[in-house]
């Protein structure tokens, strides 16, 4: 029988230590993290629904209200390494629960905001920053502990929670706003977070399968990995480049390759997200049509995300990651090379396939290479590069448009950066550095030292 099919059957249905048979408990954890991501991302995306109400009630411009969103963006990025460090120190469950409580309370407090300054503080510094304690860093750290062989698949499901939040929670907020008012809507969303999200995390999520007497993927022994043939027992909790202290990881090349490439991901997605509708206007396309195309892009990204996540467990992740960046580069070139409407839809389709696919690939590859000892901190730093790169790109693209009167320069620069990101990803020596391909000895797992031969 096909080896992957055997792995799949083994992972889905398994005897637990107490003799019960059922789905591997890790999938319940994935379900709970999916819902936490659904709430965290959906609540933050819902912010856009209320802009017109706040404009009217507070008597301020869209630009002023948008400053709160911008602060939230940066706050979310800066909080990632902190939550990552806390995750490494105290376990993902505690960070997830505490962050979800803070996010829920902040969301409820939004209902009582009396001015735009309160919005800025609550959304920018509380809801958005606390959201960083849910997704992606702590969630990725927990998933990485529960899954090794199917890490990409599991992480893609959790990431898909963000897409689902946009599809379900944002319309829910919009209709609630129509039926009641914005204060009731925020109160309801906060109530959902506190009444459903927190109990679900408390009831189901454990930071590590060892807490339930289980092992990653539901295995009895971690003695199998990508490639045929029997292997010696190894420590799945560590990776070939695991370091005693997390700063030592930055003496190795993969973390730089992953961070720089993910920074380019932030640059290009933020640039497109923020300037796509405005670019459409310069091409004579209506904002509604541009928004529709961007909606199509968002819908396609869910399918692309799940597909890429599943495939990544069967081949080298770096090849897929590089491919995703190169596909996105093609999408940006199309924006410049094609006329307005064809460019709009071509970008939506091609760009959509690559939009969120980088998340499970990057977080899984980081865990594969650096193990789990500092996975929260490392994922947090990589994600911070993404968010800050995005913030910088929005500014630069805006100034470039003012200077040149066209987005062609920015879009071509984005394509060039994506080619660089693709090459950085493709040149990661995954077979040499990944725990999927390289056994890690018990001695190395115990000492957590860097591997000189692999660190060059």
């Amino acid at each position, binding site marked *: 029988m096909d080896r992957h099919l055997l792995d799949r059957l083994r992972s889905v249905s398994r005897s*637990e230590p107490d003799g*019960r048979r*059922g789905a591997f408990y890790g999938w319940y954890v994935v379900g*709970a993290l999916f819902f936490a991501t659904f709430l965290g991302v959906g609540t*933050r*995306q*819902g*912010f*856009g*629904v209320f802009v017109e109400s706040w404009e009217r009630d507070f008597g301020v411009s869209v*630009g002023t209200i*948008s*400053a709160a*969103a911008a602060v*939230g*963006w940066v706050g979310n990025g800066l909080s990632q390494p902190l939550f990552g460090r806390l995750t490494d*120190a*105290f*376990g993902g469950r505690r960070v997830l629960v505490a962050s979800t409580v803070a996010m829920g309370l902040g969301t409820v407090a939004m209902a009582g905001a009396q001015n735009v300054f309160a919005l800025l503080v609550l959304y920018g510094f509380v809801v958005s920053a606390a*959201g960083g304690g849910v997704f*992606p860093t702590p969630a990725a750290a927990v998933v990485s502990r529960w899954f090794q062989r199917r890490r990409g698949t599991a992480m893609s499901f959790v990431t898909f929670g*963000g897409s689902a939040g946009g599809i379900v*929670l*944002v*319309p829910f907020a*919009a*209709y609630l706003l*129509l*039926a009641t008012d914005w204060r009731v809507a925020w109160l309801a969303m906060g109530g*959902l977070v506190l009444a*459903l999200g927190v109990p679900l995390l408390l*009831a*189901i999520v454990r*930071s*590590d399968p*060892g*807490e*339930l*007497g289980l092992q990653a993927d539901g295995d009895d022994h971690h003695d199998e990995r990508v490639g045929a043939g029997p292997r010696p027992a190894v*420590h799945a*909790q560590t990776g070939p480049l695991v370091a005693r202290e997390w700063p030592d990881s930055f003496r190795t090349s993969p973390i730089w390759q992953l961070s720089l490439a993910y920074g380019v991901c932030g640059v290009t*997605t*933020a640039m497109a*997200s*923020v*300037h796509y*509708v405005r670019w459409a206007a310069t091409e004579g396309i209506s904002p*509604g049509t541009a928004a*529709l195309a*961007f*909606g199509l892009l968002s819908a396609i990204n869910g399918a692309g995300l799940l597909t890429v996540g599943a495939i990544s467990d069967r081949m080298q992740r770096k090849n897929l990651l590089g491919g995703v960046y190169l596909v996105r580069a093609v999408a940006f070139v199309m924006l410049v090379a094609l006329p307005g409407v064809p460019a709009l839809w071509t970008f939506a389709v091609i760009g959509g396939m690559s939009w969120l696919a980088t998340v499970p690939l990057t977080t899984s590859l980081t865990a594969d290479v650096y*193990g*789990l*000892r500092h996975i929260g901190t490392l994922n947090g730093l990589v994600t911070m590069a993404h968010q800050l790169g*995005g913030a910088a790109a*929005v*500014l630069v693209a*805006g*100034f470039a448009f003012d200077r040149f009167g066209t987005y062609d320069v920015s879009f071509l620069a984005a394509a060039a950066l994506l080619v660089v990101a693709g090459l950085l990803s493709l040149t990661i020596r995954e077979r040499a550095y990944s725990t999927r391909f390289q056994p890690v000895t018990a001695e190395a*797992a115990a000492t957590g030292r860097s591997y000189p031969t692999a660190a060059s």
Partner: protein
Amino acid sequence: MGTALFRFVLHHSEAVDPTLARWLRDEIDHLLGLPTAAYVGLLGAAIVAFPLGLLWMARRRGPNPGAQAGEGSRDRGQRGAP
């Protein structure tokens, strides 16, 4: 640049574009034509159903083995864990 500089992004977790949100609502209205309260009820039910269903499945699977396996032991200090 003003507004355009801070337009909202729909990537990872940023706020939805108001134009897109309005379009989405209009399309759903056009497609289904239900009263607003019905949308709130349906979407709300879907949101509530997922966690309740997951909890039910987890409960049906049996008592949480964590209760017998030293729950929280790893939470107290993961740094030393290989």
